[in-house]
């Protein structure tokens, strides 16, 4: 049965990584869930591009970080944080679309 990322992950967050980038962390409480999501490809570079509607060159980093049981990726902002018109100065509310990502069994 497929599951929502919301139900599998312990933490799903976004945050500035410097003034020109936003980084996303998806952290799991147990290795099985981490491995399952990793293997499923639902957070692969291609999938992330699809979810956020961005070109692959907007992703600057994409790693699986075993010690924290985390999948982490970073995207380039189109303008620096806090420029007039930027509505998320901390980059802290960009993760919403990840919650409903479906992970196949």
């Amino acid at each position: 049965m497929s599951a929502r990322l919301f139900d599998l992950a312990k933490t799903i967050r976004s945050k500035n990584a410097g003034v020109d980038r936003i980084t996303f962390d998806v952290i799991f409480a147990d290795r099985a869930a981490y491995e399952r999501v990793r293997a499923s490809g639902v957070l692969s570079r291609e999938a992330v591009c699809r979810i956020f509607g961005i070109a692959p060159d907007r992703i600057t980093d994409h790693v699986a970080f075993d010690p924290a049981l985390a999948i982490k990726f970073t995207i380039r902002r189109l303008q620096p944080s806090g420029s007039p018109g930027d509505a998320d100065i901390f980059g802290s509310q960009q993760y919403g679309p990840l919650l409903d990502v479906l992970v196949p069994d």
Partner: protein
Amino acid sequence: MTVSIQHQRSANRTVRIVCPNGHLGFAPIRTASFEIGLTSMPDLVCADSGSCDIGPGPLGEDVSCSPLAWQTHDLEHMLLGARRLGVPMIIGSAGDTGTNSRVDLFVRIIQELAAKYALPRFRIGWFHSEVSKDRLAAHIAQGGVIDGLDGRAPLDAATLDATDRVVAVAGVHPYIALLDAGADVIIGGRSSDCAIFAAPALRAGFPPALAYYYGKVMECASFCAEPYGGKESVLGEITMEDVKVAAMAPEQRCTIASVAAHAMYERSNPFHEYFLGGHIDMGACVYEQYDERTCRITGPRFVPADELRVKLEGAGKVGERFVGMVGVRDPYTIAHIDDVIGWARAKVVERFGETGYELHYTVYGRDGVMGALEPLRDKPGHELCIVVQGIAHDNEMAREVCMTGLRQMFYARLPQVKGTAGGVAFAFDEVMQASPGFRWTVNHTMRVDDPMALFPTFIAEAGS
């Protein structure tokens, strides 16, 4: 059985630091866990006070985003605790930005607190981090390249011209110099978060890899603990073999998961942490649960830099700014909100032309928070709030740009709107002055020969 580091040093040779806050002033510290930290034999009390997260405005305008009362609250608790124990206190990146005025402000607060509490005489040291635009212009004119970070182009004269203020990000060097000079309290200008904690550890002879890692794990205080809870204290201890970090709030623990997760917090990747003079590679770090509330870390690697490159942060003013907001409930108007905005924009263009100002619309209820990243932007809610910002070189024009861009939404003509008495709802039919608009113009690095070159140090007596 392992004895908690809270009650006992785990080796003969250690440097123990209590950190109560990851951004001093931004929200007040939780004093109960800090008091526990003070009873845990710290050799220093340290906290970072800076952040780029607050946007370019405070640096550009040279103000704090933190209220003076909260800054004073935290400095008071730290100063009184540190002086009571007779241990050094270090604050980095004073007053959110680490500009000269913020450093001087914190030095003044410390001196006033020393007088208020009649503290016995101590030495206060500080350093400045601002770099003049003339110095950077000269560097460029002499053929020096100021490299861009994160994909930015090298700094050019035009960008420098559009910049109001620049700070350089110090490494451990001015902190070590001030500790060598006998400072009991150090107020740092802009500096790498990790340098505040690495400096006393390096000075005491601990290996750079562990010393810098120590700084990396400590700098956000309880953000490396779980369950989540900010502004609580953590206690760190460095030995010749490892770094240990323990949560001081009774309900928190530093676990393998929480400490490992912190390595990647607000960084592009979890493996590298850069600072003046090199970086640490955390790819081979090993995390172990030392006691119930303490995590032990081994295995970071120090990679010295081929040349000394100091990071520069700079902000430039875009203009004065006014904001207004409207609501929309008509379903047809919501479906055609871009046409409404287009109508209002056109009126601003008729009045002011295409350039010389900025006009921004943030459409809450559709894609206000995420903009173009929003996958659901074609499914707006049943009502919208639209925030309008007008930015121009003076108040008068910014007010009119914003007012035109706001009020003309009321008059927008859409063919199928049934209502003819106003296309939007005003909670306030007015525009309000906001802080000026700024932009991060500088996120670059510059080569220096001497790591102290941009960071003059000062020392004075305080107390009586």
